[in-house]
């Protein structure tokens, strides 16, 4: 039984890692200075996230963050067609941010990257800091604040604000993350900047469209069915919630 499950997990993983893997940098691609700087940033992010998430969720932190991390991990395994003919999979940073908030969302993503690096070698151990910065700090944290800014300007409680915000933030976070990743590779002297930029950015512009579409659809579904689960829930959710008998 476990054997079967493991097989399905690994084949799942294998299938999904086919192309958009470029963002998970493996060991050996980055130089010492880049590794040091990104690790310092990552450790600071982890420390603050742990503190804030603990403060926000109290002793619910462990079970809730745990299942949410497992959820992101499972969601990343699913391939879907992206406009342009290939297929991609969700990274989920912006989705996690929009649903759990910037701190808890980043924490969940950090845990996902750590488990991927240690157990599945999806991304290296020495470069874990860089992967956390590229996809956790920029993808989730940056993604959330971009989403929040757009949501605020288009109407905090409207589906339009949430949808447009999430779409732009999801796309931008993937593209910006890949550009930063290209710069890290170039500074380390592994891949020259023009090659890294053109390969990474052009590819992630497409991946980002898929990311945006899935993020918006998922958030739309939650907005219609359980709006109270969106971080800083829209007003109608709060009104409904107080009337509903729980």
């Amino acid at each position, binding site marked *: 039984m476990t054997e079967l499950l493991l097989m399905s*997990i690994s084949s799942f993983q294998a299938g999904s890692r086919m192309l958009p893997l470029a963002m998970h940098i493996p060991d*050996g691609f980055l130089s010492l200075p880049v590794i040091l700087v990104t690790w310092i940033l990552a450790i600071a992010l982890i420390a603050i996230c742990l503190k804030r998430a603990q403060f926000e969720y109290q002793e619910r932190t462990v079970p809730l963050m*745990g299942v949410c991390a*497992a959820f992101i*991990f499972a969601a990343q395994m699913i391939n879907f067609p992206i406009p342009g003919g290939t297929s991609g999979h969700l990274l989920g940073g912006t989705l996690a941010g929009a*649903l759990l908030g910037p701190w808890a969302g980043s924490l969940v993503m950090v845990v996902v990257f750590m488990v991927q690096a240690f157990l599945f070698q999806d991304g290296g151990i020495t470069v874990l800091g860089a992967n956390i910065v590229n996809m956790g700090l920029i993808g989730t944290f940056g993604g959330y604040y971009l989403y929040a800014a757009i949501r605020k300007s288009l109407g905090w409680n409207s589906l339009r604000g949430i949808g447009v915000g999430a779409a732009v933030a999801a796309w931008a976070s993937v593209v910006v993350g890949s550009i930063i990743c290209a710069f890290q590779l170039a500074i380390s002297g592994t891949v020259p900047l023009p090659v890294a930029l053109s390969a990474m950015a052009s590819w992630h512009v497409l991946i980002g469209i898929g990311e945006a579409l899935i993020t918006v659809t*998922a958030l739309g579904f939650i907005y219609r069915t359980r709006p109270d689960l969106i971080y800083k829930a829209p007003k109608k959710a709060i009104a409904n919630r107080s009337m509903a008998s729980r």
Partner: protein
Amino acid sequence: MLLHIGAFRLDVDSERRSPWHDLIPSTRVLCMVLMVFAIALTPNGQWKTWGLYGLGIVTLVILSQVTFSALAKRVGVEFIFIGVVLLGTLFQRSGEVVWQWGWFQVTTVGLTNLVSVALKMLLSLTMVNILILTTPIPALLHAIATLRVPPLLVAIMASMYRYIAVLADEFQSMRRAALSRNLMNSRKTQRLVIGNMVGSLFIRTYDRGERVHQAMLARGYTGLFPQAEIPKGSWRDGVAITMVAALAIAGQMFYIQGR
């Protein structure tokens, strides 16, 4: 920790008896981290250093009696997926041109880069996989907790590990349900269905988290898991760490002295 039903296992070789298995898990993790950092931080083109590390890792493969086919399969699959990225390292402008085809030129610097990065990746992947194949995941989690990774982070990782299989299974069954209702036949509806799937699975996940929390409270949970007894290291662990550290430093000496 709550690690039992439904969780997957990767450690096919954890039941063997060997000098490597005699080490406590935290020592093994420490050895792995030392080796991987030493391998990955060596500048490009230091063949002697990686030769030495390679020898060390081959010795470890033999010592730990890890199933070679399982190791080769894991490393091979992981290597292929990274291989695409590897090609990018070939495009360098500096150095002597070895081969040219139109604008595309292969230089000595590009080749050194490609082979160096490939070697580094191969060695570190092998090292990590030896650890993963010989150590059960709960033991690994305990080990990193004793190595001063914040307990809260480890606890979240443990509860994530417990639920990965459950959630992967739920995704599979939802996908199967959509497929059997013919909802996945066009690319557009496929995206819509998967987006809704992700949304509805998040709602279920969140509710599951609340339920798990209630169940934990009912069993006397106060915010952190009680720590199981930490296995005590013996003289072997000290020797192992010293040997790995010596190997790492010896490797680095090759090029530091060569300057």
